């Protein structure tokens, strides 16, 4: 199939206004073929050109063979939310090519493998066909290597068509392969060959291209899970226990990468940390509570099904008052659900995790920088409040690459909370005595030589001296103190980030990664004369600032990625007198939210 045959005749003659640095591109490939290297190469090359970008991997729960789509948003205006449609398709998965081409918007562009038969045609789409097999043959590669090489063919062709300089591709490859020349060259040679062929054989007739900008200088590109792992290393984690589960595993991978680099004794090489792969999530949180009780800074990373297994231990941590940090990289449930898709469906479950009267502190990062910072904040809060602290990230933030200012060295010192040692332990010390009126007692650690330090941590009913008690008044007083402690948490956790707009009549509340779609939607609404104010929650429990915000607007939309409006329900109980102002806009299909959905959802009201 030749190039000319593929080119829609009506397109050739038409000159369209060029569209620079403002489009979405999707690479359709098969899982496990090394396409992630190719996708990240394009993403990082664009980033190195100074153009705001975001990449989202829409991948299957599979090791090899099922379709994968990698979405790259290129936005001169800095919008990095997902869009409903992508204008440019790199169609390199034969199994999905028909559907992928069908999904292109009119005026879209398709780069496709010329060696395939029966490629569907569309008159309103620009088709470019690349003879992939020819390049693969030329390299002399065989077996699985062929797939890897084939992916680099589309990198070269796309670079030529969009105008990505080859030196930026080389920089990206060099980053990816950590400077290993042989690997860089192997891939770069394929890219160059495809680039040269495309320049010679293809007449560009679509309007999309890129041009260098200066918007990413000094920025970093990283995944949320890597940032969280790094942040935890700087936050003083000493103990991690975990069980592999998508999409949290790469957070522990980051710990295993950074801890040996940064937290060994420089002289002896001995470790100032330990990471244990547990037999399940239940054992993982058990180890955390054992370690936290003994005085370590203990953490785990998991996702919905793991959280389900942790429920009973979460209650013990809450009730025996043991610090621990649990990162929940949310995927889509219930049950196994969609393990490789994103959502915000664990909010109410985690908030109340544990039977009986239980409430947990939750942090909601929305950027990789917050992932890094919460590495310290979560451990400090856990130690200061003597309770398990949860951090709810999601697959989109955790596993995808995001631009960010470089992370600042933590301003927050390492806080160990109220720990008494040796002679500091007063004669009349009792573990759960509320000396300061904030609901937080003073604890001691095992191993303290002062005999007064000993106490018995337990999940059974106890009095202020940690002695077993079934007395009604002891139970009631203890639970009231725990409520007081939770109220103390309200002003200790990171407060909401509020963007108040004058004369706005609509308030929007959200948390986590929905912010990107919301920020873009607010600009569009503002362009149509609809002013909105925005409050982004960064933690539960909420404080007075949150209620004040709700009080100021007659309509407050709570936007989130789940079915039932979980945060909406929590806010209604937190501010019952304002409950009727809160309107739930909740939606979940496994994909990151888009600005279009937000605009439509608000406009429908």
């Amino acid at each position: 199939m030749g190039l000319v045959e593929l080119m829609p005749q009506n397109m050739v003659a038409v000159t369209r206004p060029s569209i620079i640095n403002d489009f979405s591109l999707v690479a359709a490939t098969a899982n496990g073929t090394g396409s992630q290297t190719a996708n990240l190469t394009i993403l990082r090359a664009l980033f190195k050109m100074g153009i705001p970008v975001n990449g989202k991997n829409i991948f299957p729960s599979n090791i090899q063979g099922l379709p994968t789509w990698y979405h790259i948003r290129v936005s001169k205006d800095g919008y990095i939310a997902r869009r409903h449609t992508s204008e440019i398709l790199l169609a390199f998965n034969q199994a999905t090519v028909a559907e992928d081409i069908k999904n292109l918007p009119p005026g879209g562009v398709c780069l496709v493998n010329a060696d395939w038969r029966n490629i569907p045609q569309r008159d309103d789409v620009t088709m470019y066909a690349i003879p992939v097999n020819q390049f693969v043959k030329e390299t002399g590669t065989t077996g699985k290597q062929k797939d890897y090489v084939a992916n680099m063919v589309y990198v070269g062709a796309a670079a030529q068509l969009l105008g990505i300089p080859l030196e930026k591709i080389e920089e990206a490859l060099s980053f990816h392969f950590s400077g290993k020349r042989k690997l860089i060259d192997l891939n770069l040679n394929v890219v160059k060959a495809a680039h040269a062929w495309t320049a010679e054989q293809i007449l560009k007739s679509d309007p999309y291209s890129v041009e260098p900008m200066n918007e990413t200088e000094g920025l970093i590109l990283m995944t949320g899970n890597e940032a969280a792992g790094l942040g935890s290393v700087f936050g003083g984690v000493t103990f991690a226990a975990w069980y592999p589960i998508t999409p949290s595993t790469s957070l522990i991978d980051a710990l295993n990468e950074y801890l040996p680099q940064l937290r060994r004794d420089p002289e002896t090489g001995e470790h100032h940390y330990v990471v244990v792969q547990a037999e399940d999530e239940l054992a993982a949180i058990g180890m955390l509570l054992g370690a936290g009780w003994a005085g370590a800074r203990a953490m785990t990373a998991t996702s919905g099904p793991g959280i389900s297994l942790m429920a009973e231990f979460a209650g013990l941590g809450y009730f025996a008052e043991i610090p621990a940090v649990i990162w929940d990289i949310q995927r889509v449930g219930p049950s196994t659900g969609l393990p490789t898709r994103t959502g915000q469906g664990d909010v109410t479950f985690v908030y109340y995790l544990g039977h009986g009267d239980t409430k947990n502190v939750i942090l909601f990062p929305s950027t990789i920088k917050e992932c890094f910072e919460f590495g310290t904040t979560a451990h400090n809060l856990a130690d200061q409040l003597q309770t398990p602290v949860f951090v709810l990230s999601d697959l989109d933030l955790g596993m995808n690459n995001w631009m960010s200012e470089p992370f600042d060295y933590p301003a927050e010192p390492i806080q160990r909370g109220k720990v008494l040692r040796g002679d500091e332990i007063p004669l009349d010390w009792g573990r759960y005595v509320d000396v300061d009126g904030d609901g937080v007692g003073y604890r001691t650690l095992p191993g303290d030589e002062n005999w007064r330090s000993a106490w018995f941590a337990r999940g059974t009913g106890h009095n202020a001296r940690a002695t077993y008690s079934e007395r009604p008044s002891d139970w009631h007083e203890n639970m009231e103190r725990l409520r007081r402690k939770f109220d103390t948490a309200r002003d200790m956790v990171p407060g909401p980030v509020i963007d108040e707009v004058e004369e706005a009549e609509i308030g929007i509340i959200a948390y986590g990664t929905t912010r990107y779609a919301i920020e873009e939607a607010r600009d569009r609404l503002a362009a149509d004369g609809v002013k909105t104010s925005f409050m982004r929650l960064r933690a539960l429990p909420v404080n007075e600032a949150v209620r004040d915000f709700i009080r100021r607007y007659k309509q407050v939309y709570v936007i989130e990625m789940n079915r039932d409006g979980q945060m909406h329900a929590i806010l209604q109980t937190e501010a019952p007198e304002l409950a009727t102002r809160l309107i739930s806009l909740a939606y979940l299909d496994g994909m990151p939210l888009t600005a279009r959905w937000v605009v439509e959802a608000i406009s429908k009201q």
Partner: protein
Amino acid sequence: MGTRREPHTNLIGLAKVDYNGSPTTLCQGCGHNSIASQVIQVAFELSVKPHEIIKLSGIGCSSKSPAYFLGQSHGLNGLHGRMPSLATGALLANHQLRGIGVSGDGDTASIGLGQFKHLLRRNVRLVYIVENNGVYGLTKGQFSATADEGQALKYAGVNELPPIDICMEAVIAGCGFVARSFSGDAKQVRELLKAALSHRGTAVLDIISPCVAFNNHDTSTKSYGYGKDHEAPLHDFGWVPPAEEIEIAEYDPGEMRVVEMHDGSHIQLRKLEEDYDPTDKLGALHRLQWAQEQQEFITGLIYYDPERPSLAEVSRLTDTPLALLDAEKIRPSAQALAEIMAGLQ
């Protein structure tokens, strides 16, 4: 007048009463109380520093007992069947501590079997006592997974299923110190406890501890009567502390087996009716299987392997426990962060 009195204080100046816990709330005559008494006696005799011990347990009658000994040691009473994970975390967070965990047959052989096996696989330095009575006490008399096949109980009916042998499970899981004893045999329990405290990894003591309320009738192999009549020690077990000399000369070498422990102490095994070699893993499994088939109540050190390092050892930890590291040890420098950030641009 002329009566022998125990010394009032031990080498570190503590009296036996200093090793007491709260008064027991278990039934009078419960085997578990006797075991708690032996823990107190052993800690006193060995001059154990209470702050160097942590006590852990799951849920059940057995798991209440850590409250009844070593009141000057920190304790953690966790969830049903989940003591192993708590112990793993605590003993990595502070590897200078020694753990004494108390569990039961429900806690270990049913709800906690998975964690039990993985604890042993990791070889956490913990004395793991199973107070095994074959029955659920707090929920009033259901069979546990260690109950005898064919046994009848008043409310539970007849147990049609074969028992899980905790010692066999321990040997298979790679545990290096597996013993069985009887709460009615105080001397053996004490000697085994002493040796267990010297072991570098997990030491499992499966102690048959009769339930006087629900499972102490003569048809039960977990009863006092059965235990007294049928206990068949594999050897006369003794433990000799590191500093003391072993007077082996007074025994016929064929009669006595001496094994050195990791901390320089010694185990002495005096041959009884059979010549049993506790360092032979397959032999141990074979003997346990045979005992189960014949309903023999063998006691003593069933399997011993001092070679496997503990989890803390393989984790290459610094001497200072993780729990006590200073802030500057657990937060890398600003320079280190700057270098990482530069590499990500």
